C-alpha cells in the first residue's frame, strides 16, 4: 500500500469559492489532467464533516497523497493535518479568489488561475512521499552547559528543575563567573532604590546541592562531536584527565572577558593606581565591605570619585569596542551608591554621553541615584591625569558646550564586555568549490586553511569549524529580535553575555530561555523532528550518491553546518543538525539532493504543469517563487486586504529562497514563462532570513542568472529577485504587477509552443 501512489484531490466550495469558481470544472481537471484517483468537492471542507471525509478516504480507500484545494497552506493547518499522507495545498482562496475582482471580464482568467493551482497541487503530491522519520534519531536528555557563571548556573538549574540531567563545564576553579567578584548587584526588585545582594553564593549552593547537576571545574571541552541527540564531548581537566560524555543539547554560556583597560592610557589607566575599572572597583568595595572605600595608591579614604562612562566603548577608534555594553550606566549608578550610602558627603560624579538604563527598574534606579545626590554630568572625557593630591578629569561639557575639569580622588572607567565567543569560524578559508566556475575568493588566499585566531570554546569536529559562527563584534547570535537563542548550529544555544552584552538580571532571564530551547531540542532530536523554524518537520535531506560530483557546494553553503564530508569526500548529512531549509538542494548543480516531501521535482513539476497559452493569447505567465516564511504570508495578507494582483502570476511557496535551484528558473523560461519573480527575506547585516544565509545565497546565485538569460536570448528584466519583509503587504503584490507591466512592455516570451 505504501508503495502505490493514491492521490485524493479535495476541492472546497466554502468561503465563496463555489460561488465564483466552476468547481466541477476544477474537479474534472484534477481527475482528467492531473490524474487524481479520487476527486471530491465539499461545501465546507475544513469542517468536521469535510475532514472526516478525507480521513475516511485515507483509512478505507488507501489514499496516501492528499491535495487540498481550498485556502492558503497557512490557514486551517490544524484541520488539514493527516498522518501517513503527503499533503499539498492548492491555494484557491488567498491565491485566487481574494486577489481577483468579482467581475464578468475577470471570470475567465480567474478560473484559469484556479485550474492551474488545482493541477499543481495534485501533481505536487505525486512527487511527494510522506516523511518516514529519521532512523538516526537518538534520545539523550543529558544537557551540557559550558560555563559556570550566572547564565550557566541558571540554565543548569532550570533544566534540572524540568527533569533533565545537566553537566556544567567550567574553565575556572570555582563557579560564579564574573558575578562572583561583585560586591552587590543592580536593584532587581521594586522599589529599585538600593544595590542588592548578588545571590551568587546561594546559586552556587543550589547547584552543588542538586543531584541532577554534575560540575566539572578547571575543565574545558577538547572535542565535541556528533549531532543533536547524540553529541559526544571530551571534558578535559587541567590535570590532564579526560572524560567523554554524551549529551542531547548544548548551552554555551561562556560569558565575557572584561575589556583590557590598558588600551586606554589617555584615561590614565596603568599610569595611576587610582584609575580603576568597574570590575576593580567591585573588588575595592568588597574589601571595604560597607566601610569607607580606600583608594589603591595610598589607602586614603575616597572623598570624591568620578565615573567615566563609555570608556573605550561606543567608539570607532582603533582598539575600542564599537558597541554599548548595556549594563555600565546602571553599574556606575550602583557603584556611586556604594559611596553615597556609606557617606553622603562624598562627591560622586558620573560623566556620561547618553545615560542608558535598560530594564523595568532602570529608570527608578537612576532616579534613586539622583535622590542620593549622585551628580550626573553630560560630557565627553578626554583625559585623566595626575594633579595635586589626586586626579584631574578633563572633559567637554556637552550641555554648556565648554571644556571643564574636575578633581577626584578616584576615577572609575566603565569599560565594556568582550564576548568569549571562541574562534571566528568564518574568517577561515572557505575550501575551494570545485565545478564549472571553480571559484576561489581571492581575499581568502592570504589565509591558509585551518588557521583560527583565538581559543576555541566548543572544539566542534564540524567540517565548518570548531565554534559557533559569529554575527557581529564576536558575539555568537543568530537573530537579535526574531529568534534570539538560535545559533547556526542546531541544538547548541548561546546565552548570557556571549550572545549580547547584558547585566545579571537579563542573564538570568536569558538563561532560562536557553534552557527551554535546549529541552525543546532534546525532545525534537529524539523524535527526528526539525527545530526552529520548521519545528516538527520529519523530512530530512538525502542524496543520490552515484550522481554526486563532490563539488562541496552543499557542505560549504549549509548555513547550519549540518553536512560533513566522509572519507571518500562525499557529503555526509547529519540529519539532526539539519533545519530543513533546502539550501543544499538549491546549491546542488547536479540536483541529487532532495527531501521526501520537497524536492527539485515537487516544485519543478508544478512549474511544468501550468497551462501555457500560446503567444497570441496575450496571456503571459509569471512564475513567483515566494519564501514561505515572509513573502508568502505577505501575499496572503495582501489577499486578506483584497489587494488585487495579476491573474497571470503563479505563486509557488518555497522553504527558503536558498532552496531555489536555478534549474527551476531555467526550465520555466524554456517552457515559455514570460517572467519570474523571486521573493526572499532581507539579507545582509540586518537579515530577516529564518535560515540566516539562505536569502543571501539565493541572491548571489541569481546574480549569475543573466548568463542563462543571455544564452536563451532573453531580456534580463524577465527575472527579478527581491527582498521582502512580512510587512510588505502592499509591496509584494505590486512587484508582481510590475513584472506584468514589464512583460507588456518587452513583449511575450518567444519560447511558447
Amino acid at each position, binding site marked *: 500500500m505504501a508503495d502505490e501512489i493514491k492521490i485524493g484531490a479535495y476541492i472546497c466550495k466554502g468561503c465563496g469559492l463555489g460561488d465564483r469558481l466552476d468547481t466541477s470544472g476544477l474537479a474534472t481537471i484534477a481527475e482528467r489532467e492531473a490524474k487524481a484517483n479520487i476527486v471530491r468537492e465539499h461545501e465546507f471542507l475544513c469542517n468536521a464533516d469535510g475532514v472526516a471525509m478525507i480521513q475516511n478516504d485515507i483509512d478505507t480507500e488507501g489514499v496516501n497523497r492528499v491535495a487540498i484545494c481550498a485556502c492558503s497552506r497557512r490557514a486551517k493547518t490544524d484541520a488539514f493535518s493527516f498522518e501517513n499522507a503527503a499533503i499539498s495545498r492548492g491555494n484557491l482562496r488567498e491565491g485566487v479568489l481574494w486577489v481577483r475582482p468579482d467581475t464578468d471580464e475577470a471570470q475567465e482568467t480567474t478560473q484559469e488561475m484556479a485550474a492551474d493551482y488545482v493541477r499543481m497541487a495534485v501533481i505536487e503530491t505525486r512527487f511527494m512521499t510522506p516523511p518516514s522519520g529519521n532512523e538516526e534519531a537518538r534520545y539523550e536528555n543529558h544537557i551540557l552547559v559550558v560555563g559556570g557563571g550566572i547564565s550557566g548556573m541558571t540554565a543548569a538549574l532550570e533544566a534540572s528543575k524540568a527533569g533533565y540531567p545537566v553537566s556544567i563545564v567550567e574553565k575556572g576553579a570555582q563557579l560564579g563567573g564574573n558575578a562572583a567578584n561583585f560586591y552587590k548587584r543592580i536593584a532587581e526588585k521594586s522599589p529599585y532604590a538600593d544595590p542588592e545582594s548578588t545571590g551568587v553564593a546561594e546559586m552556587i549552593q543550589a547547584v552543588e546541592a542538586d543531584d541532577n547537576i554534575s560540575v566539572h571545574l578547571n575543565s574545558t571541552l577538547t572535542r565535541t562531536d556528533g549531532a543533536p541527540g547524540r553529541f559526544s564531548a571530551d571534558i578535559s581537566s587541567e590535570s590532564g584527565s579526560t572524560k567523554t560524555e554524551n549529551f542531547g543539547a548544548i548551552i554555551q554560556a561562556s560569558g565575557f572577558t572584561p575589556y583590557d583597560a590598558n588600551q586606554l592610557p589617555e584615561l590614565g589607566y596603568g599610569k595611576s593606581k587610582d584609575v580603576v575599572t568597574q570590575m576593580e572597583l567591585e573588588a575595592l568595595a568588597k574589601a571595604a565591605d560597607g566601610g569607607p572605600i580606600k583608594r589603591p595608591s595610598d589607602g586614603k579614604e575616597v572623598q570624591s570619585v568620578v565615573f567615566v562612562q563609555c570608556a573605550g566603548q561606543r567608539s570607532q577608534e582603533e582598539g575600542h569596542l564599537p558597541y554599548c555594553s548595556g549594563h555600565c550606566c546602571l553599574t556606575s549608578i550602583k557603584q556611586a551608591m556604594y559611596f553615597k550610602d556609606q557617606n553622603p558627603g562624598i*562627591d560622586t560624579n558620573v560623566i556620561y554621553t547618553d545615560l542608558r538604563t535598560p530594564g523595568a527598574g532602570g529608570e527608578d534606579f537612576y532616579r534613586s541615584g539622583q535622590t542620593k545626590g549622585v551628580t550626573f554630568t553630560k560630557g565627553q572625557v578626554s583625559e585623566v591625569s595626575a594633579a595635586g593630591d589626586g586626579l584631574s578629569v578633563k572633559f567637554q*561639557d556637552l550641555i554648556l558646550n565648554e571644556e571643564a575639569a574636575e578633581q577626584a580622588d578616584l576615577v572609575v572607567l566603565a569599560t565594556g564586555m568582550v564576548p568569549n565567543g571562541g574562534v571566528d569560524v568564518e574568517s577561515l578559508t572557505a575550501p575551494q568549490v570545485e565545478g564549472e566556475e571553480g571559484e576561489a575568493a581571492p581575499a581568502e588566499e592570504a589565509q591558509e586553511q585551518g588557521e583560527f585566531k583565538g581559543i576555541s570554546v566548543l572544539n566542534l569536529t564540524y567540517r565548518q569549524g570548531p565554534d559557533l559562527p559569529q554575527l557581529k563584534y564576536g558575539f555568537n547570535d543568530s537573530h537579535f529580535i526574531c529568534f534570539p537563542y538560535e545559533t547556526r548550529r542546531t541544538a547548541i544555544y548561546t546565552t548570557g553575555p556571549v550572545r549580547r552584552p547584558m547585566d545579571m538580571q537579563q542573564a538570568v532571564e536569558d538563561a532560562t530561555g536557553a534552557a527551554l530551547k535546549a529541552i525543546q531540542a532534546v525532545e525534537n532530536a529524539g523524535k527526528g523532528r526539525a527545530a526552529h523554524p520548521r519545528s516538527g518537520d520529519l523530512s530530512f535531506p538525502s542524496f543520490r550518491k552515484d550522481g554526486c560530483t563532490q563539488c562541496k557546494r552543499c557542505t560549504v553553503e549549509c548555513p547550519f553546518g549540518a553536512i560533513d564530508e566522509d572519507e571518500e569526500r562525499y557529503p555526509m548529512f547529519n540529519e539532526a543538525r539539519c533545519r530543513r531549509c533546502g539550501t543544499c538542494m538549491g546549491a546542488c548543480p547536479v540536483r541529487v539532493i532532495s527531501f521526501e516531501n520537497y524536492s527539485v521535482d515537487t516544485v519543478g513539476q508544478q512549474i511544468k504543469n501550468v497551462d501555457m497559452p500560446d503567444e497570441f493569447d496575450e496571456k503571459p505567465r509569471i512564475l513567483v517563487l515566494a519564501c514561505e516564511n515572509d513573502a508568502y504570508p505577505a501575499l496572503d495578507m495582501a489577499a486578506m486586504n483584497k489587494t488585487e494582483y495579476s491573474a497571470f502570476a503563479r505563486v509557488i511557496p518555497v522553504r527558503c529562497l536558498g532552496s531555489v535551484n536555478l534549474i527551476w528558473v531555467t526550465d520555466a523560461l524554456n517552457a515559455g514563462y514570460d517572467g519570474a519573480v523571486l521573493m526572499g527575506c532581507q539579507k545582509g547585516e540586518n537579515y530577516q532570513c529564518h535560515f540566516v544565509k539562505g536569502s543571501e545565497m539565493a541572491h548571489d546565485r541569481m546574480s549569475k542568472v543573466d548568463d542563462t538569460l543571455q544564452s536563451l536570448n532573453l531580456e534580463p528584466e524577465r527575472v527579478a529577485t527581491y527582498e521582502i519583509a512580512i510587512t510588505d503587504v502592499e509591496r509584494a503584490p505590486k512587484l508582481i504587477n510590475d513584472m506584468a507591466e514589464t512583460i507588456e512592455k518587452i513583449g511575450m516570451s518567444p519560447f511558447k509552443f
Partner: protein
Amino acid sequence: MSDANTAMVEKYRNSFLKEVEANVEEGEWVKMCMQCGVCSGSCPFGPHWAHPPQELFMMIRAGKREEVLTSDSMWMCTSCYNCIVRCPRELPITHIMHGLANYAHRLGIAPKNQPTRKFAKLFWENLTKKGRTNELKLGLSLYFMNGFGDGVKTSLKMKDIGLGMLKTKRMNVGEMWGGHACKDTNGLHAILKKAREIEDAKMQKF
C-alpha cells in the same frame, strides 16, 4: 545684602548645588534633572534667554554660582507652565526659576535694571502696603518706571483707555488718595515681617 552673598560663597565653597537645595524654593529638585532638554524646547521664550532651564540646572551642578545668580535668564520666565507640564521628571521648573530669581534678589546680585525685577518690586511694594493691589497706582508707577518724560508720554498714549475705564467705573480716581485696604493692615505687616524673619533665619542656619 552683598554681605550675605560673601557669606554664602564661604559656606558653599564647593557645592553650589547644595546651596541651591538649601536656599532656593523647590531647589532640592535641581539634582533630579536628567538633561533631556524638553523644558528648553517647550519654553516660548527659549531662544531669547541666555540660559534655558536645562542649562541653568547644568550650570548649578557645575558650580557656576556667579553666572547663574547674576543671569537675567530666570527673570524671563512668564509662568506659562509649559515646562512643568512637559517635564518627564516632573520638576516644578517654573517655581525653581522664580526661586532662583528671588534668591539672587535677596543676595543683592540680581541684574539691577532687569524690567521684570523692577516690576516685581513695584508690585510687591504696592500689594504689601494695604493688602490689596492698587491698580491705579501700580499702573502709573509702571508708566513712570523709566523716568518722568517716559511716564508722561505713556500716560498720554493710554489716556483714552483710562477715560473709558473711568466712564464704565472700572477705575476710581479716589484710589490715588489712600485707596482700599484689607481689614487689618497692621496684622498683615506683622505676618510678612515674621515670614521674613523665618526665611532669614533659614539662610543663616545653612
